[in-house]
């Protein structure tokens, strides 16, 4: 992907080229974007002028072209520049419409972002060039070497600081969206993705009904708390246990099947659980679901507006519903990190190696005395257990569950996260969850698209379309997901990642 050879010239060449491309874009978009005929109240056509839109498009092309042609930059640096520029262009357009006039001098902000990106690119260019070279020489070896333990700690620290930072910067009102829609929502899918990664990524068993175990967990908490009044902290392990139990129950008959057959049976099982939840109305209340599930408490202290017993009062804070959301954020963060830690540790134990060996070659496993049925069962049960935990969390967060939440679409989304992330890679799965779920949330808020396609356009309606397009593009460019290399579980001399081309995908 190094374009230096073809372009040959320096920065000046790239700038001129990008300028020309931007001019062409401006010329083309002038009749399409800049001018628009609308009917006024007298049913007469009027010419509406939309210059910022044209300018934004030209800017997008300019920076995109520049990012692609600037000499000596790595692929990552090019993408960063392009995304920054796109952000700047969109921001500029939004501001020109006066949709968001709170920030001072938005043109300056936009230009500063674009400029900072350019400077960053220029500074990192030599480094990126050498690292690109190094990557070429050593294959995927550079990947793990670059990821130090410090980076991991920094990442976890940033996650823990995130809600407090959002609260501090945006206040209780503004930060709710960030902590809840982006934070908690994404982390649920990160956890589900990591759980399914054990089954699909490590053991290579294609499970299309993963959401069934999520449902078991959610209904376990919903029923135990509403009927027996059990607290969340007792229900959480029980939810995991029940889900694992159902995992084993499903696993015993179906794990003799392989590949497509296994996928179809798990798909059927997912539907069975949903249909049972709908029809067993005595227990589950059918379509109506179970409502008024007890909310989360701070280890027994409720998050209510009460001068005596409430969380805020006890800790001398002013009451705000954001406290509960922040606590939920930390809870799901800990659950997700637990899933990750367990998976990483299991990978280094015989059972984890047996899972991966099973994915690589089941027949060879049998010839070495690995009991394939029980090995598959443990993978299935463990994956189900983490889905059960996530389900209990889902129920306590929504304080309402209904079969609607556990459709095949959910299973497909979780599977897409695992496949896009790179099967078996923890980091890749997390990145894919952020991109997919976060991307969907962002799309929901992209009001700028209304300016292009008209007022009646609802971007949220097109989420699945964009989602599908992203899948197709990914599968063409990186068919093995974001992180396709595999880190060995044990080593003699040097821990070098294994390139994805050797790693098997599992046939059930």
């Amino acid at each position, binding site marked *: 992907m190094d374009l230096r050879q073809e372009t040959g010239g320096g920065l000046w060449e790239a700038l001129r080229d990008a300028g020309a491309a931007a001019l062409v874009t401006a010329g083309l978009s002038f009749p399409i974007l800049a001018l628009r005929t609308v009917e006024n109240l007298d049913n007469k056509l009027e010419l509406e002028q939309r210059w910022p839109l044209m300018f934004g498009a030209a800017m997008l092309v300019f920076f995109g072209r520049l990012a692609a042609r600037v000499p000596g930059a790595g692929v990552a640096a090019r993408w960063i520049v392009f995304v920054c520029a796109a952000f700047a262009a969109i921001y500029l357009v939004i501001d020109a419409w006066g949709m968001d006039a709170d920030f001072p001098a938005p043109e300056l902000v936009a230009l500063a972002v674009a400029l900072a990106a350019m400077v960053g690119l220029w500074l990192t260019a030599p480094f990126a060039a050498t690292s690109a070279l190094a990557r070429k020489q050593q294959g995927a070896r550079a990947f793990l070497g670059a990821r130090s333990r410090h980076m991991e700690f920094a990442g976890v620290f940033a996650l823990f600081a995130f809600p407090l930072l959002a609260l501090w910067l945006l206040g209780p009102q503004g930060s709710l969206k960030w902590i809840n829609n982006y934070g908690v929502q994404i982390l649920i899918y990160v956890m589900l993705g990591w759980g399914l990664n054990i089954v699909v990524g490590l053991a290579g068993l294609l499970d299309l009904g993963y959401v069934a175990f999520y449902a078991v967990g959610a209904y376990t908490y919903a029923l135990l708390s509403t009927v027996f009044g059990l607290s969340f902290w007792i229900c959480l392990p029980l939810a995991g246990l029940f889900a694992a139990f159902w995992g084993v129950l499903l696993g015993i008959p179906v794990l003799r099947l392989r590949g497509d057959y296994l996928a179809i049976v798990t798909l059927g099982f997912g539907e069975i659980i949903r249909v049972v939840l709908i029809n067993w109305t005595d227990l589950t209340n059918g379509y109506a679901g179970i409502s008024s599930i007890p909310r989360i408490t701070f280890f027994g202290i409720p998050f209510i507006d009460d001068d005596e017993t409430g969380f805020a009062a006890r800790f001398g804070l002013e009451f705000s519903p954001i406290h509960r959301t922040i606590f939920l954020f930390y809870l799901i963060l800990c659950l997700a990190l637990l899933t990750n830690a367990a998976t990483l*540790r*299991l990978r280094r134990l015989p059972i984890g190696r047996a899972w991966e*060996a099973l994915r*690589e070659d089941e027949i060879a496993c049998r010839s*070495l*005395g690995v009991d394939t049925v029980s090995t598959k069962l443990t993978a299935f049960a463990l994956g189900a257990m983490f889905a059960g935990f996530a389900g209990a969390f889902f129920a306590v967060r929504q304080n309402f569950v209904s079969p609607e939440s556990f459709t095949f679409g959910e299973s497909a989304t979780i599977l897409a996260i695992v496949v896009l992330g790179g099967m078996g890679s923890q980091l890749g799965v997390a990145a894919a969850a952020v991109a997919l779920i976060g991307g969907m949330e962002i799309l929901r808020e992209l009001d700028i698209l209304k300016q292009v396609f008209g007022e009646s356009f609802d971007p949220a309606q097109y989420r699945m379309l964009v989602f599908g397009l992203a899948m197709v593009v990914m599968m063409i460019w990186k068919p093995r997901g974001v992180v396709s290399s595999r880190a060995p579980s044990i080593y*003699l001399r040097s821990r070098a990642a294994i390139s994805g081309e050797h790693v098997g995908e599992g046939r059930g």
Partner: protein
Amino acid sequence: MTRWLSEPLLAVDHLSMRFGGLVAVDDFSFVAGRGDITALIGPNGAGKTTVFNCITGFYKPTIGRIALARSGKIEATGVEALTRSGRRSAVSQTCDLYLLERMPGHEIARSARVGRTFQNIRLFQGMTVLENLIVAQHNELMRASLMTVGGLIGLPSYSQAEKLALDKAANWLERIGLLDRADDAAGALPYGDQRRLEIARAMCADPVLLCLDEPAAGLNPRESGELNDLLLSIRDKDRVSILLIEHDMSVVMKISDHVVVLDYGRRIADGAPVQVREDPAVIAAYLGVADAGETKASVGGGQ
């Protein structure tokens, strides 16, 4: 008396395997001696791999008995008693006896200790060379990790066991000359190295009988020579008996102690290499028959 008759380790009795109407193995019997390299040869499609798959539990034979003595030697009375008892194995002071046709594949590898390699190499390609050898010690490590629980909480006895497993793997890597490539993907190795690695992996599971399905296929003469040395050292140093399917006659004649010839699912010759080489039925099966009346009609029409 020859060793395979005086000290048998494996006794295959009246083995038949049918796939629908096709008879792949037809009333086939032979014994393999402890400490021998026994070669199973025959033209393509003779049923050699089917016999292997029956012994290692990948197929369930239609008819027949496959007895293996993990230690001691096979006595007809002991085998009869075990067969009638309906159990899979009998452990006595003189002999650990297993009836392989009654056991699932992984049990044959785990309890009866029969290791095998495959005609088309079956390594864990995406795992490192070292990991391949560690997975082979799965059952031992599973026990040491107390079925994962002990490993999860980090018992010192588990890390001790893991260290031993690493030593064993490193030792085998040194023997097959792959120590430098321990941390590379197994799928990235050249063909000849993959063949040797597969043998080392099977050996890491501590077999008493090692079944090799065409280990010399696709090797050049130098690699073939190295393979001979490796197999001889497995027989002499590790005291592991070997059952070998091989087309390369230079390998078979040089290293095997006992040759069994199979054609159309039947045994046509059995004996020391020199003996078998002279056998007219074998020559007919391999080279075809010049004059159909000269040898048995059933052998005619071979390659």
